[in-house]
C-alpha cells in the first residue's frame, strides 16, 4: 500500500544492495498514512463525537425529543437570550431543539449506516456474481444498474417512496436502491481486474471452489476501494434521506429527523430562525466530517485514487 523506503547498503566494491525493511503491520501503516491528513483526523473526531451522542442519546439529551413544553414555545437559544433549561431553544410546539438534534443524530447516522451496510453486502454479492458468472447474470445485473443510474437520484428515491409510502424504513430502501449501482459496479470492476492475476489462476489450479475463490481469495483484494466508497456513501445517504425528510417523504412526525425538522421549521424563518438554522447545521457538519474522513481513507487505502 505505502511505498516503503529502501535501505541501502553500499558494499566495498561500490555495488548497492537494496533491502526492504520489515513491513509494519498493515493497520499501523494505514494509521500512519491516515493520520498524516489533518482534515481526515478532524473529520474522524467529529464523526466519533456525533456517533457518541447518537449512541448515548438518552443519557446525553437534557429532555425527551418529543415532549412538548407548552409554556416554553419558541424559546430562543441561550446565546440569544434563552435559558440553560433549553440551551438551543425550543421549537414551535415547545420541544427541546438540542434533544431533538441529539436524537436526530441517531436517525441520520442510523440511516447512513444501514444504507451503507445493505449496499455493501448486496453490492458484493451482485458485483462478484456478475464478475464470476459473466453471461446473462452480468448483462441483467449491469443493465438494471444502468437504468437506476439513468434516473436522477432524488426522482428515483421519490418514486420508490411514492410506491412504498413515506416512513423511515422506506427511506432506507429508497436511498439504498439509488446508491446500489456504485457498489455493484465498483466490486465488479475490481473483481474482474483481480481475476486475471496469477494468484487467482494459481488458486483455481489448486482446485479452490468457486465460492471460496469469490469470497476468500478475490474479495479481500477488492476491499480498499469498497471501504472508501462505503465511507463516502454514508454521507450521500444522509443527505439524500434528509432531502426526502424535507419533502415530507421521509421520516414522519414526531420523529426528530433533521430534514423533517427543517421542513417543520419553514414557516418560522422570521419568528424563530434557530429552528431553521440548527438542524441544517447538524446535517452539514456531519456530512462534511464524513467526507473529510472518507477523503483521508481514500488517500491512505487507495493511493491510485489520490487526488492531486
Amino acid at each position, binding site marked *: 500500500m505505502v511505498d516503503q523506503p529502501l535501505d541501502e547498503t553500499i558494499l566495498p566494491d561500490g555495488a548497492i544492495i537494496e533491502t526492504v525493511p520489515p513491513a509494519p503491520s498493515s493497520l499501523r501503516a494505514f494509521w500512519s498514512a491516515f493520520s498524516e491528513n489533518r482534515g481526515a483526523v478532524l473529520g474522524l473526531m467529529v464523526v466519533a463525537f456525533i456517533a457518541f451522542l447518537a449512541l448515548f442519546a438518552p443519557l446525553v439529551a437534557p429532555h425527551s425529543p418529543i415532549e412538548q413544553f407548552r409554556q416554553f414555545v419558541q424559546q430562543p437559544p441561550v446565546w440569544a437570550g434563552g435559558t440553560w433549561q433549553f440551551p438551543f431553544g425550543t421549537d414551535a410546539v415547545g420541544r427541546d431543539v438540542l434533544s431533538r438534534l441529539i436524537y436526530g443524530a441517531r436517525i441520520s447516522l442510523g440511516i447512513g449506516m444501514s444504507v451503507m451496510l445493505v449496499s455493501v453486502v448486496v453490492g458484493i454479492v451482485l458485483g462478484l456474481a456478475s464478475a464470476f458468472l459473466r453471461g446473462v447474470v452480468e448483462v441483467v445485473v449491469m443493465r438494471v444498474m444502468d437504468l437506476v443510474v439513468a434516473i*436522477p437520484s*432524488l426522482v428515483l428515491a421519490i418514486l420508490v417512496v*411514492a410506491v412504498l409510502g413515506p416512513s423511515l424504513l422506506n427511506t432506507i430502501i429508497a436511498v439504498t436502491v439509488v446508491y446500489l449501482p456504485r457498489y455493484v459496479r465498483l466490486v465488479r470492476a475490481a473483481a474482474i481486474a483481480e481475476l486475471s492475476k496469477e494468484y487467482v489462476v494459481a488458486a483455481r489450479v489448486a482446485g479452490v471452489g468457486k465460492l471460496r475463490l469469490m469470497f476468500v481469495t478475490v474479495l479481500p483484494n477488492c476491499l480498499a476501494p469498497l471501504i472508501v466508497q462505503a465511507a463516502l456513501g454514508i454521507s450521500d445517504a444522509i443527505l439524500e434521506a434528509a432531502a426526502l425528510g424535507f419533502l415530507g417523504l421521509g421520516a414522519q412526525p414526531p420523529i426528530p429527523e433533521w430534514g423533517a425538522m427543517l421542513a417543520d421549521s419553514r414557516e418560522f424563518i422570521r419568528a424563530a430562525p434557530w429552528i431553521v438554522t440548527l438542524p*441544517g447545521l447538524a446535517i*452539514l457538519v456531519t456530512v462534511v466530517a464524513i467526507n473529510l474522513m472518507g477523503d483521508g481513507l481514500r488517500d491512505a487505502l487507495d493511493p491510485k485514487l489520490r*487526488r492531486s
Partner: protein
Amino acid sequence: MFRFFIRRVALTLPTFVALMFVTFVAVRLVPGDPIEARTGERGIAPERLAMLRHELGLDRPVWQQFLDYANGIVHGDFGVSIVTKTPVLHEFAILFPATLELTLCGLIFAIVLGIPAGVIAAVKRGSFFDHSVMTVALTGYSMPIFWWGLLLIMFMSEYLGLTPVSGRMDLINYYFEPVTGFMLIDSLLSGQEGAFGSAVAHLILPSIVLGTIPLAVIARMTRSSMLEVLGEDYVRTARAKGLSPLRVVGLHALRNALIPVVTVIGLQTGTLLAGAVLTETIFAWPGVGKWLIESIARRDYPALQGGIMLISGIVILVNLIVDLTYVAINPRIRHG
C-alpha cells in the same frame, strides 16, 4: 467512429424500454386508488366508480394497459393528468421552460465561478486561496441545499430585504402572456419597465442554491485537471519559450484541462434536475420538480408516470450527447 455512435445510441433503447416498464409498474404499485383519492371522504357511488375506472382504462388487464402506455409514449402521448384533465406532455411543456431557465442559470453560476476558482487554485497551489477554494468546495459538496436555500431566504430576503422570497415574477405589478416560457426573455419582450429586473431578482437565489453542488464539483475537477496539465512537457516548453504566464495557463493549459471538466458539467444534468425538485419546492418555483412532488400528493398517476419518464428521458439523452461529444473531441477513447 460512426459505428461507435450507432452502437452507443442503440444501447440507450433498452434503457428507455426498461424505464417505461419501471415507471408503469411502480405507479401501479402506489397504494390508493386515484379515483378514491380524488373523491376523498365523500365516497362515490359504485356505478360512477366503475364508469370512471372504465373511462381511464383502469378496468383493463394490466399488460394491455402497459402496451397502451408504451404505444402512447412512442407516439408522444404521455397520458392525461387525472387532476387537471390536460395531457401530461402539455403540462410538462408549459412547466419545463421554468425548470430549464433555472437549471441553466444555476449551471452558468457554477461554471462562471467554478472554472476560474479551480484554475487559480491550481496555479497558486498550496496558497491561502487554494485552501479556501478547497474548503468552500468541500462545504458546497456536502451542503444540504434545501437548508442552504432557507438560509439565503432568511438572510437575503427577510433580513436584508434584497431579493424576493418565491416565484418567478412580481405578478402584482407586471403581467404578460408567456411567449417563450423563459421569464428573462418574455419580460424583455413584454416591454414593461422593470419586468426584466424582477425576473432577474427572482432568479438569483434559486440559481445560487441549485448551482452550489455543481460549483463545488466543477471547481474541484478544474483544479485537479489543471494541476495535471500544468505538469506536462508542452506546458514547460511553452514557458521555456518565454510566453507570458497568462498565455501559458489561459491558452495552452486550460484548453486541455477543460476536456474532463466539460464531461463533468454534462454529467451534472441529473444532479441539477434532482436539485431542481428541492429548489423549486423551497422557492415555490413553478417548474416540473414542484409539479412532480405535488403529483404524488394528489395521486396523479399519469402525471407522476409521465413526469418521471420525461425527466429521466431528458437526462439519458443529455448523457448520451455528452458521451458522444466527448468521444468526438477526445479520440483516445474512441475505441475503448
